[in-house]
């Protein structure tokens, strides 16, 4: 299971970075989404995979006993998902607005910040 997940994470990272290097704005955002998902899976994997053991210890248990799932990575992923969801929706609105105002979705044509204007 770990191997499959590692391969998937590697694919997500590489695809994300590849898409970020393209010139199209849409591909840039898709790349960011893939990277965001890749890092969430990485946290999940690094927390250690435990099958079928909920992260709950009964109130009467005297010791932890069996290995149980670590709840912390799940909390971290939840936070990270919410944050990246917010950022991604902002990114979509931003590129839509930038496309309307600038009139292109080619990053190489967005160079008015380098011009000696005003």
């Amino acid at each position: 299971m770990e191997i499959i997940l590692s391969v998937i994470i590697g694919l997500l990272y590489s695809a994300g970075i590849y898409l970020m290097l393209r010139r199209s704005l849409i591909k840039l955002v898709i790349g960011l989404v893939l990277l965001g998902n890749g890092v969430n899976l990485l946290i999940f994997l690094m927390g250690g995979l435990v099958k079928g053991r909920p992260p709950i210890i009964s109130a009467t248990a005297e010791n932890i006993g069996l290995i149980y799932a670590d709840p912390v990575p799940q909390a971290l992923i939840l936070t990270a998902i919410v944050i990246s969801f917010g950022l991604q929706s902002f990114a979509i609105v931003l590129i839509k607005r930038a496309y309307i105002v600038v009139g292109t979705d080619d990053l190489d044509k967005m160079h008015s910040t380098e011009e000696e204007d005003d």
Partner: protein
Amino acid sequence: MIENLIIIPVLFQLLLAITLLFFFRKIKTQKVISISGSIVAVVIAAFLFHQVYDEGILTMQAGNWQPPFGITFVADAFSTTMVLLASISSLAVTAFSSVTIKKARLRFGYFPSLHFLIMGLNGAFLTGDIFNLYVWFEVIIISSFVFITLGGKKVQLEGAVKYFTLNFLASILFLTAIAVLYGLTGSLNMADLAGKIKQINNQGLVQVTAILFLVGFGIKSAIFPLYFWLPDSYHTPQAAISAVFAGLLTKVGIYALLRTFSLIFVPDDFIKTLIVIIAGLTLISGALGAMVQTNMRKMFSYLIVCHIGYIIGGLGMFTTAALAGAIFYLIHDIIVKTNLFLVGGIVFKITGETHMKKMGGIYSAYPGLSLLMAIPLFSLVGVPPLSGFWPKIDLMQEAFFSGNYFLSGCIIFGSFITLLVIIRFWSEAFWKKNEQKELKPHVKYYGTMPASQKLFLVGPILLLSLVSLYIGLGAENIIRLSDQIAAELMDTSVYIEAVLGTSHTIDTP
């Protein structure tokens, strides 16, 4: 109960921002609440600083979860100094923006976002938990996205795309580093990590994680090969916003670098050399970038990059004296960079230009104001006895004695180019004769403003200049403070004991 004081700077800004949301369309009320709130925030920060300076490190465990399981907030001398400086800068910026930002922009939640931003900064400075630091970073960048796009001009949106992408990438790298670190140690508490990281057998992986943190924070603080987004986006928003970005946003990245690389990853020779080289190249490339710019605000943006090099250089040498110099420079830089962009704003209001060649005649028209603006400009260069002079001595001396001749050369080079650039700016904008030209209709000129508005333009610059003068002339006190902070960064056992308690002290192998 005193430990709950730590969280007050964060909660107070949250309260301010929420209160402001209730007055969303009432700009006048927002201005009053925002400025008076910022004054209270300075008082709170000063009180917290005083408390920590006198009585040592304060810690607070959120929800009373015992460390290292819960989120810890830690107020040591370093973090409270940063909170105090951030509150002073934000006070100046709120006053300045109340007259310079256009009404249409203020109507779209300018002030609430500003206070959310300051809340994020305070949180980032005060937290003792690495994942919580990530969350505060996100709070900061989400608020900064509002600022960088507010107004929606073409150049702003293009700048925003670059700013967004690089900041998102930095967050991803930071989060990746946290994931690997958690996998290695099973902990997120920075004090706890400090002990656990030394017990890991696979130090190679620790090194990789350290580099991930270096790149993630490096993008945010604009160090050498990672700074290209900064001069492309910082000049697009309004002066007051650029001032917050310049003074505080890049510095929170530096703070995080100093914190993680002193507490969690104590730099070995490889990382030290790497950071020193990066610092030198940051100084050179920032200085050369500033030299070729004719747009005032772009030139200032390159100066931000250039001066990051001094602080990083201090970290790279990693001795108490070098760190003290870096901390002193950081203290000086926050105030003076905020002020620099406010000065840029006022120069624009007077001349209606951001292009240096088209400016002129400010000195003959406003001699008193020009002298006031000379204080931040020449503090930046480090003309003795102004504030930039003292930390440079420290850094220079340390670089020379520790044999980092490359870095000492770069420090001299950076200082000279800064001097050259500022002198050129001074002679172009202030001393050159003004050519008669038509007034632009959409610019509200300084000369036509009523006295009450002028007060809000000059007041913040005066406030920050006085702080700068105090840092320069009262350098004795600041040196004592930065020495104490540097000593705490070098010997982290005090911090670790304060967070985990003496019983948890982990002996280092």
